[in-house]
């Protein structure tokens, strides 16, 4: 279910006195089953871009085509069940009396049978690591992290082929963050879902994704495999971003020990590399 974005332009309040260009000249192709990270600083157009993926925003110019469905068409029901978007602070959208009803909301809109709905509610709760004991609780009684996961489950339950998450871990503690990322990677692997993750934490993006799209001033600044994006921290710094801290450390170490492979993106990979080098020295 490839995503194809052709020459996308988007202008807020087009034609009005307050019009503002939000996106310009965007051309992207995303294949099935990719795990993509989108980074960029505030106002770079990340959120505007992802809202085009299920037709919430329509291009001012250009086309967004998802599995041969153009988002400009009128009936978006099919599109919306194929592309699930988890917005920032998704727990703010909870509204039902019970967790079960809230997760069912999207499924009822999809017109599924009650049996199917019940099945999916349970499995989606599992896939975000919540126990089915909370099914009949009010979502407002849950803790912050649980609320967040319930809201994500509400989107996951719809079984989208493409899952888009806008800063899914904002405001969570490191443990909650790692857990959520764990579940997201698992969804990606188990169902071969295309996952698009928006974040401004370089560490998270580096750890999880295969390909990184860097946004700057409303257009794509860089679109490369993760390892290549971070190989050049200077370019990222130029637009107010940075590489993961570990990349900087490895670069420094390389100036002292030239045989080190500095192209590692996570702390784990770095420690492996260092141990390998140390072992070499000992032998």
């Amino acid at each position: 279910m490839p995503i194809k974005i052709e020459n996308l332009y988007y202008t807020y309040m087009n034609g009005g006195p307050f019009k503002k260009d939000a996106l310009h000249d965007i051309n992207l192709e995303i294949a099935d089953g990719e795990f993509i990270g989108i980074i960029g600083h505030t106002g770079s157009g990340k959120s505007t871009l992802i809202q085009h993926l299920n037709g919430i925003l329509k291009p001012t110019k250009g086309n967004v085509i998802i599995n041969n469905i153009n988002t400009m068409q009128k009936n978006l029901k099919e599109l919306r069940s194929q592309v699930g978007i988890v917005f920032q602070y998704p727990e703010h959208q909870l509204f039902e009396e019970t967790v079960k009803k809230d997760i069912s909301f999207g499924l009822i809109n999809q017109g599924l049978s009650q049996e199917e709905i019940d099945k999916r509610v349970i499995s989606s709760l599992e896939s975000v690591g919540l126990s089915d004991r909370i099914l009949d609780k009010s979502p407002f009684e849950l803790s912050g992290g649980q609320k967040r996961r319930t809201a994500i489950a509400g989107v996951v339950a719809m079984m989208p082929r493409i899952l888009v998450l806008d800063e899914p871990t904002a405001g969570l503690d490191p443990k909650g963050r790692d857990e959520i990322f764990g579940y997201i990677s698992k969804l990606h692997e188990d169902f071969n879902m295309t996952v698009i993750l928006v974040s401004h934490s370089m560490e998270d993006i580096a750890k999880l994704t295969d390909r990184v799209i860097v946004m700057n001033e409303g257009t794509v600044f860089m679109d490369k495999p993760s390892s290549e994006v971070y190989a050049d921290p200077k370019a990222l710094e130029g637009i107010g971003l940075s590489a993961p801290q570990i990349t900087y450390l490895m670069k420094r170490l390389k100036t002292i020990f030239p045989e080190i492979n500095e192209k590692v993106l996570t702390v784990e990979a770095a420690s492996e590399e260092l141990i390998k080098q140390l072992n070499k020295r000992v032998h």
Partner: protein
Amino acid sequence: MNKPVLEEINSKKPIRATGVLLSEKGELTKGIRSFEKNMIRDITIGQYVPGSSLLHKSDPRTKLILTFVMMIFIFMIDTYWGYLTLAIFTAITVITSGIPVKFVLKGLKPIVFIVVFAAVINTFTISGTPIFELGFLKPTYEGLNVAVKMAIRLFLLIIMASLLTYTTTPISLTDGIEKLLNPLKRIKVPVHEISMMMTIALRFIPTLLEETDKIIKAQSSRGADFENGNLIARAKSFIPVLIPLFISAFRRADELATAMEARCYRGSEGRTRMKQLNFTKNDVIIAAITIAFMAWVLVMQNVSK
């Protein structure tokens, strides 16, 4: 969310008025758009348009009082000649205020329907000499006369009232109201509290609109449909938007109250202002022109009778 709110409340720059933010955020999503038929975006009354005209610079109290007097005055005129001069006066005021004429006219759009509707009712129900008769339909000249006058009055009224908010920031408007209502404190009216509530309400309009926009987007991503179905179905479809909205409004209220208390807010007692309201030459000029104009029209109207 607390930080930006506080920063905005603290900074002395005028808080972004509803209109500007709405327009920047632009697309209040389709759901609401079709639901409200563009109503929200057309309502320009209550918005502030930055500028540096005489009207912008004058004291909010002057503008409040003059607007109030003007409203009474509009109902005292009952000749077409009077309306014509008033319309010209209004036009001149709009032009000198530097507010785009298009913007002012756009603000009239939402009330056109009400005015036309009322005018038709008037024309057909007031008894007098009939223009024509068609079964039970009997439009009369008297009715038409009343209808046209009322329509003109309403339009002028809206323009005048909008001019007040176009040229005054919500904050200085509530400051002005607080000052004007001050004498009521003697009879134990909580003037400061009322104006604080107004300030907070105005400040949260854009925030809540933004929030509404977000929730609508989130729910429609989950397949919520705000456009189809009958009236009841559509009203029901807004529950998933309204409940989160209320919850977040209460949460924000709580947070704001805590933040205010943490800064030792305790009502009007002993509270001083950074910006004092002062009458200046501008106010004298505006008041003099307006009052002279009104007096002249009233005199001419009585003479011509």
